[in-house]
């Protein structure tokens, strides 16, 4: 009957939720505009046959503006299948124009009006009988985030032909919108507090500090859980395996491989799972409630001179989880220049994979609560992000910012199933990464450090091991930080494959902690924080732009990391000299700028 079904409509109308229920998938959902940025394909059973279904990014009109809108419109205009036009009840007045546009092009459309209860709650209404009489295509309505709603939708797809009434329709009569009473917006106390220019910003800070405390604070939830996992997964398990292997008379090489390579390297990373999971759960919860759209509004003013607008906040928040995902979300930004500018700066945001290594590096010099350290790290990242944006706007990707125009969704109580699905998805991804990438890095690292080039084995590591020769050539890079250690360069190489790889390397190469001067260690932490992202993030950048841009990005990020680490190091060693030099250069720069301005005025 149909070759395929396309879920189409305005942003935040519930298309992905329908897609997930139809296809039993677990695609990302959220209560803000622009969650879906690419067409997703799935299948659902229909008349004992499998039917392809596409979840398309939301659009505001049939004339696309943004990149993801183009994807949607192209698909809908080409398809011969059924277009299920999902409409959020409250926005029927805008969506109806698009419905008429598609009917005019002889497309097979099924109108599914979603979130009707919410419309009634907000004192709006739709006369569905009248709407059905006026439109020449079938109309169904209900709550399509429930199984009952999905059954209704499936039935409508199945009986599409019977529901069709081939009649003449009058566009002008439909556009009068006699059947629709728009909702009334009443500013709730919650909206007043979260969008107030002073209280809203304070609240934003408090919410994030609270989340960080829960995850990293001494009396939070994350730290005790983390200690528990470390105690069981590393200490107890290592002891058990060692005793067991001794009884079985297993060779020292195999024992070391399992204890150091597998339990130490992989289990060591596992201990940070509760902390990163709490961070991800909090972001997911805030996303599902609709708070993130308010954050975009609140921060738009702060980003005024940076060349991007508040919409980029979604990418920043995704960057707290994973740089690769955050780069992919830049597709929702207004144009290619803004997308490039945001991407160039996203490397400055700490992804959750950097947290284990940062905590291990800082373990020897951070004597206060980890919560403060991590909060400072994130603040430092946001400052760097802003500086990088301004820098990019001035020198790399010139052009003005596009004003923020965005619909703010109403607050919604998140569905427990959506929350659980999003959390499980992260958990699955984390575990998959641990048993694949981290496992491979850990084992490879162990073999490379324990086997010398003449193939002799030493569990304590060889000075002439394969790893030594692979890393020694790069160790000169860290001489300016007073670091003469091939282990440090090995550690940074691992970080190129996955940022957790650095933590694995620290656990294996520095079992008693990194013993280098504190100032050098801080410089190394800065270098690690800023330097080239992992290969996954680079490949997403290549897909989003091109190979040339990816190479530029990687080199720029490396150079910036190096220069920044040098500045931090010398600032710690010779603060007065560095500050004086900085002041002199600053004064020269300002004088030159003033002279240029004067010349321009003359």
């Amino acid at each position: 009957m149909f070759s395929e079904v396309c879920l189409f409509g305005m942003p935040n109308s519930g298309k992905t939720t329908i897609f997930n229920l139809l296809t039993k998938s677990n695609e990302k959902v959220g209560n803000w505009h622009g969650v879906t940025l690419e067409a997703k394909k799935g299948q659902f059973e229909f008349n004992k046959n499998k039917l392809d279904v596409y979840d398309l990014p939301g659009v505001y009109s049939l004339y696309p503006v943004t990149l993801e809108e183009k994807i949607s419109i192209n698909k809908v205009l080409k398809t011969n299948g059924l277009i299920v036009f999902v409409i959020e009840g409250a926005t029927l007045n805008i969506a109806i124009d698009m419905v008429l546009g598609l009917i005019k092009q002889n497309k097979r459309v099924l109108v599914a009006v979603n979130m009707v209860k919410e419309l009634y709650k907000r004192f709006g209404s739709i006369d569905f009988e009248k709407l059905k009489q006026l439109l020449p295509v079938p109309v169904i309505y209900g709550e399509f985030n429930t199984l009952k709603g999905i059954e209704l939708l499936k039935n409508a797809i199945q009986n599409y032909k019977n529901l069709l009434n081939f009649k003449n329709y009058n566009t002008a009569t439909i556009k009068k919108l006699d059947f629709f009473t728009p909702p009334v917006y009443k500013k709730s106390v919650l909206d007043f507090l979260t969008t107030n220019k002073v209280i809203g910003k304070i609240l934003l800070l408090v919410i994030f500090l609270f989340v960080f405390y829960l995850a990293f604070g001494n009396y939070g939830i994350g730290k005790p859980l983390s200690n528990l996992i470390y105690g069981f997964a590393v200490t107890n398990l290592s002891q058990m395996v060692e005793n067991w292997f001794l009884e079985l008379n297993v060779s020292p090489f195999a024992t070391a491989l399992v204890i150091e390579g597998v339990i130490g390297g992989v289990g060591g990373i596992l201990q940070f799972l509760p902390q990163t999971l709490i961070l991800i759960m909090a972001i997911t919860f805030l996303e599902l409630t609709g708070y993130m759209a308010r954050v975009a509004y609140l921060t738009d003013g702060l980003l005024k001179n940076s060349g991007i607008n508040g919409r980029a906040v979604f990418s920043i928040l995704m960057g707290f989880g994973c740089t690769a995902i955050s780069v992919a979300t830049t597709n929702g930004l207004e144009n290619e220049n803004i997308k490039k500018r945001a991407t160039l700066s996203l490397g400055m945001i700490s992804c959750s994979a950097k947290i284990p290594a940062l905590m291990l590096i800082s373990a020897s010099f951070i004597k206060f609560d980890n919560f403060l350290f991590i909060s400072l790290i994130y603040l430092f990242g946001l400052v760097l992000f802003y500086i990088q944006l301004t820098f990019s706007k001035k020198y790399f990707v010139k052009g003005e910012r596009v004003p923020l125009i965005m619909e703010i969704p109403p607050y919604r109580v998140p569905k427990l199933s959506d929350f659980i699905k999003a959390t499980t998805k992260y958990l699955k991804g984390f575990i998959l990464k641990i048993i694949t990438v981290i496992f491979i890095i850990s084992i490879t690292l162990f073999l490379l450090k324990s086997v010398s080039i003449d193939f002799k084995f030493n569990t304590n590591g060889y000075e002439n091991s394969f790893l030594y020769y692979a890393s020694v050539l790069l160790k000169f890079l860290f001489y300016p930080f007073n670091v003469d250690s091939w282990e440090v360069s090995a550690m940074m190489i691992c970080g190129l494959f996955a940022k957790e790889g650095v933590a694995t390397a620290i656990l294996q190469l520095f079992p008693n902690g990194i013993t280098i001067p504190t100032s050098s260690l801080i410089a190394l932490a800065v270098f690690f924080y800023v330097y080239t992202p992992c290969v996954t993030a680079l490949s997403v950048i290549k897909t989003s732009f091109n190979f040339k841009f990816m190479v530029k990005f990687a080199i720029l990020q490396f150079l910036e990391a190096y220069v920044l680490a040098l500045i931090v190091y010398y600032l710690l060693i010779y603060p007065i000299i560095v500050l004086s030099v900085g002041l002199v250069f600053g004064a020269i720069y300002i004088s030159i700028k003033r002279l240029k301005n004067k010349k321009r005025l003359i």
Partner: protein
Amino acid sequence: MVLSKLNKNQTAVIESVKVSDKLVLKRLYDIGVRVNAKIKVIDLSKNTAILLIIDGRLITVSYELGKLIVVKGV
């Protein structure tokens, strides 16, 4: 600034929308800003965006652009 024409309750009807950037104008139209739309400004600050209610929907618009929305009929 045109928004000062709003009445005491910060409500008005948009009689025309004048924006220099065509794409921005289009986006405004797409998002629901129509001539004759009922508008209420609920937040206006010097260094952030404006929060508007347009026909019952909450919409945020950058401040610079907000200046260009011509509101009459108070």
